[in-house]
């Protein structure tokens, strides 16, 4: 085919065979582009609809499908002026809250998770099963004491800690079984399986005890906790992929483990950090259920505001669309900026999984 001198190719060959090994046959090229462009339209289409709905009047929305501003229908800024002028305070506040909470939680989760992942990869742990069993038993006993028998929680906690230390030294001499790194990893990661609805009310009660309801701290802490498993999962394999010789030579040079981690290892795992950061940021930015329970007015976040547009008059599509647009826009911008890192990062994290 290619390279043969001056033999005219048949129509069939011109259409269906590759002109050279590094590119596609014309028919194949058309087919591939068609499918890809089609799916691109599928991805963008709904968002386009959302965008134009934010410029429609209620009568235009209810009256039937109108597709093109200025051609099909008269666009209006009513929804936008309502959201940003009339109730501006109630739109900007959740937005700022979302930004603060998502960023803070993401940084915290990535930091704590990366630290833990590094430790789980480089340092050998042996956790005695006896210790775990005793711990859990005492935890349950403490909770029962506080809930059912109204023992003040400080006393119960102190007693539990004392008993724990006491039992630990005796039991650990008797039972030698221990859990290693893989088990600890699995335990941390498996917490992702837990449906949030199971944990929501107890977390609410916990924050209520500390008078932290409807504060940023509550949501930041909760989001950090919920997303730690993902960070540990993804970062673990980055760190495993870094050649250990680099760190060993650093140690020989006198670097402690912490310095090695921050100065040498983290920069090497840049793309993984970027990918994990982006993923966790998206998860925090878009989270609904926990924010619903733990916030009222002060810490209200954007997903709640979007959902709240469904009132007694039915969903107010025009307001909802405008809110969705301002929610999605910054995330798209960040994603475009980081997109190279994301793909590479998620891949490497997923390979060893």
């Amino acid at each position: 085919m290619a390279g043969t001198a001056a033999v005219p190719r048949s129509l069939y060959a011109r259409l269906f065979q590759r002109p050279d090994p590094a590119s596609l046959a014309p028919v194949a090229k058309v087919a591939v582009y068609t499918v890809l462009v089609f799916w691109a339209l599928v991805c963008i289409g709904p968002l386009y609809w959302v965008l134009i709905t934010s410029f429609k009047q209620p009568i235009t929305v209810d009256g039937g499908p109108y597709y093109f501003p200025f051609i099909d229908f008269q666009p209006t800024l009513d929804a936008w002026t309502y959201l940003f002028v009339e109730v501006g305070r109630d739109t900007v506040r959740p937005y700022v809250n979302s930004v603060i909470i998502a960023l803070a939680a993401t940084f915290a989760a990535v930091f704590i998770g990366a630290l833990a992942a590094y430790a789980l990869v480089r340092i050998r742990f042996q956790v005695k099963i006896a210790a775990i069993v005793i711990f859990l038993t005492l935890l349950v006993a403490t909770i029962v004491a506080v809930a059912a028998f109204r023992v003040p929680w400080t006393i119960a906690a102190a007693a539990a800690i004392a008993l724990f230390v006491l039992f630990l030294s005796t039991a650990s001499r008797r039972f030698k079984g221990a859990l290693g790194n893989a088990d600890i990893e699995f335990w941390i990661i498996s917490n992702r399986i837990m449906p949030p609805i199971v944990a929501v009310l107890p977390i609410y009660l916990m924050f209520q005890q500390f008078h932290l309801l409807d504060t940023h701290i509550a949501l930041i802490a909760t989001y950090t906790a919920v997303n730690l498993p993902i960070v540990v999962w993804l970062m673990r394999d980055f760190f495993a992929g870094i050649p250990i010789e680099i760190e060993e030579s650093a140690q020989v040079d006198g670097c402690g483990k912490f310095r090695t981690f921050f100065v040498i290892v983290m920069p090497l795992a840049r793309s993984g950090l970027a990918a994990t950061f982006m993923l966790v940021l998206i998860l925090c930015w878009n989270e609904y259920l926990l924010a619903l329970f733990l916030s009222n007015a002060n810490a209200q976040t954007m997903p709640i505001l979007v959902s709240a547009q469904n009132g007694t008059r039915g969903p107010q599509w025009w307001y909802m669309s405008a809110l969705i647009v301002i929610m999605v826009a910054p995330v798209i911008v960040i994603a475009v900026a980081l997109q190279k890192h994301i793909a590479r990062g998620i891949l490497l994290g997923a390979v060893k999984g």
Partner: protein
Amino acid sequence: MAIATTLPVAARAGNGFGDWAERHSGRIMVLPAVLIVLAFAVFPLIISAYLSVSRFALAPGGYKLSFIGAFNFRRLLVGQQQYHFLGTFSAFGPLEWGVAVLAAAALLYWLYSYLISGKLRPMGLVGRLISAGLGFGVVLLTLATIVAGGFPGSLMTTLVYVFVGVSIQFSIGLALALLCAQPIRARNWFRVIFFIPLMVTPVGIAYTFRMLADMEKGPLAPLRFALHLGEFAWATDPWSARLVVLLGDTWQWTPFMFIVLLAAVEARPHEQIEAAKIDGAGPFQIFRHVTWPAIAPVAATVVLIRLIEAFKIVDLPNVLTNGGPGLATESMTLHAFIAWRTQDLGGSAALGYILLFVSTVTCVSFFNFGVARARRYQ
């Protein structure tokens, strides 16, 4: 997941704080994560366990919880709410009996082969028994509620969302990744555009799809007459309603599959592909012998991640149909959410626990039998 070689513990003499920190560096590094998980996962699990065996009632001064044992669980599995959770059963015909017997035989054979494999371990046996038991239960439920013509409950609906949804998303994501890995221009543009659906908040996606699926004023309304669907309303038929939920779910999560699989496909060893092409291999053979082994571990992991998240689906069925028509689109989280909204905290916690059990068994089974096998390609 073998641990890479560990660093030697620095044999530091010295009693300064820095040296103490160095000796215990492992524990210090891991401690924050462990504490947080304890506080936000283990503690709530214990409280929820207590809630699931009690009844919540308002009382002067606040509320009171009364212990009622396994009542909530019994009500869901064999009691008054069985039609809601498991579904309405129809009688087994010969087809159903045949399939049930076949499934039982297959599972028993699988267990038997493990018993005689020589690698028997008690934990392994227990795990396999649980997996087999749950698997057989699901088969029976499917036969009784879907095949034989009954009505599936929230458990079956959730499983349909999970398995059918993840399969569709994986297939489309893989197809897109393979196409995008071809020598085409603008690959980066496609990558970014395909990634966008993942970034919209699930509640927003749910409302967006409700708008799109509206056959009166949504953008697809003219299609209805063009395709002569006329009087058909997707929201009145259980399966079409579930299909619309799946469409929304697919739109949202296919990008995730696509991004990861594309990176995996791009990381294939090029020399092998070149060699195969020179040997005259067609595209299917290349896929089977070069591409698939290269991406199998990644594919398995990404499916596992997606499985874990898929069990929690709630926003789409809630917003699109509120769980209707009848109970057709209600997932387990939605079922628990509705129960919670009407103060049935015990029932809600019981549902949450059953969901946790089912998703844990499914994901761990998939990990042990799917991911591990895929890793063998490495």
